[in-house]
């Protein structure tokens, strides 16, 4: 049976088609989910894609977090549904309190689009099983509000529990505390990532194909489950 991965479109989502393409290239079936529809249509996992849902107005992710589909996703995530939030999706996960911390304006105050080197710190989550801990990858990063912040206690906890999923190498592009590029929840089914693995899945259009691993990871995990 094909693995079905839902990709949610919120008003203002931008990288939803890209996330669908990445799911397809990884060998799963992408399923378009609509923000106003509570039904997840039986998908095995969910990607919250990048973009500027609701124009990033009020706070990034603050309005989307209250959409009907998020009610089901939040409940599902607590039961173990694999959820990957990329960029704006990461912001929504933080606003939903599925992940700790928050994303703030880049320290240099500019939007930044660059090919970013990362180190995968935790290869045991639902979305990183195809990598090896310590593996370095290069994927695009593009954000205006990507600076990960949390209080010291939370940061220490994330480090101690191995919940930092990926860390920026060479350049910290947005002032994230402790160079954190992505984190996971305690159970490892919910991952938030500021860089964009879905833009590094084809040699023609991406700087590398290093991003594909996030999407094959979930496939491997679900098939083995």
């Amino acid at each position, binding site marked *: 049976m094909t693995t079905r991965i839902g990709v949610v479109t919120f008003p203002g989502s931008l990288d939803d088609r890209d996330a669908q393409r990445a799911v397809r290239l990884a060998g799963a079936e992408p399923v378009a989910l609509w923000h106003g529809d509570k039904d997840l249509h039986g998908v095995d996992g969910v990607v919250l894609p990048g973009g500027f849902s*609701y*124009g990033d*107005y*009020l706070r990034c992710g603050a*309005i989307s977090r*209250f959409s009907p589909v998020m009610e089901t996703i939040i409940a599902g995530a607590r039961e173990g549904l694999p959820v990957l939030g990329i960029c704006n999706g990461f912001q929504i996960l933080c606003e939903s309190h599925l992940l700790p911390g928050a994303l703030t304006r880049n320290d240099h105050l500019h939007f930044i689009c660059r090919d970013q080197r990362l180190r995968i710190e935790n290869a045991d989550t639902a979305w990183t099983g195809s990598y090896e801990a310590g593996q370095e990858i290069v994927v695009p990063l593009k954000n205006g509000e990507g600076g990960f912040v949390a209080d010291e206690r939370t940061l220490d906890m994330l480090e101690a529990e191995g919940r930092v999923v990926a860390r920026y190498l060479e350049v910290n592009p947005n002032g994230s505390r402790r160079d954190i590029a992505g984190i996971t929840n305690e159970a490892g089914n919910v991952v938030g990532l500021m860089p964009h693995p879905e833009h590094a899945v084809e040699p023609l259009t991406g700087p590398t194909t290093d991003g594909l691993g996030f999407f094959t990871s979930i496939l491997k995990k679900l098939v083995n489950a």
Partner: protein
Amino acid sequence: MARVVVDVMLKPEILDPQGQAVQRALPRLGFTGIADVRQGKRFELEVEGPVDDAALARIREAAETFLANTVIEDFTVRVEDK
């Protein structure tokens, strides 16, 4: 030290996309009866020395030339009682 507050708001005739997005979201969350929302910026300036007319004039100048974009924004300056 005294605190001077500068509030910067988009001029009434200028579109405020942020306020509109917030206003549209409110009823969905059950907060009804709100006819309009406009979003602005608040600056809190901690002033050394007395806040006299000269100091306020300087702050107005700062607001006019720097804190607000007077092409599209209005501002107000007030001294906050502590």
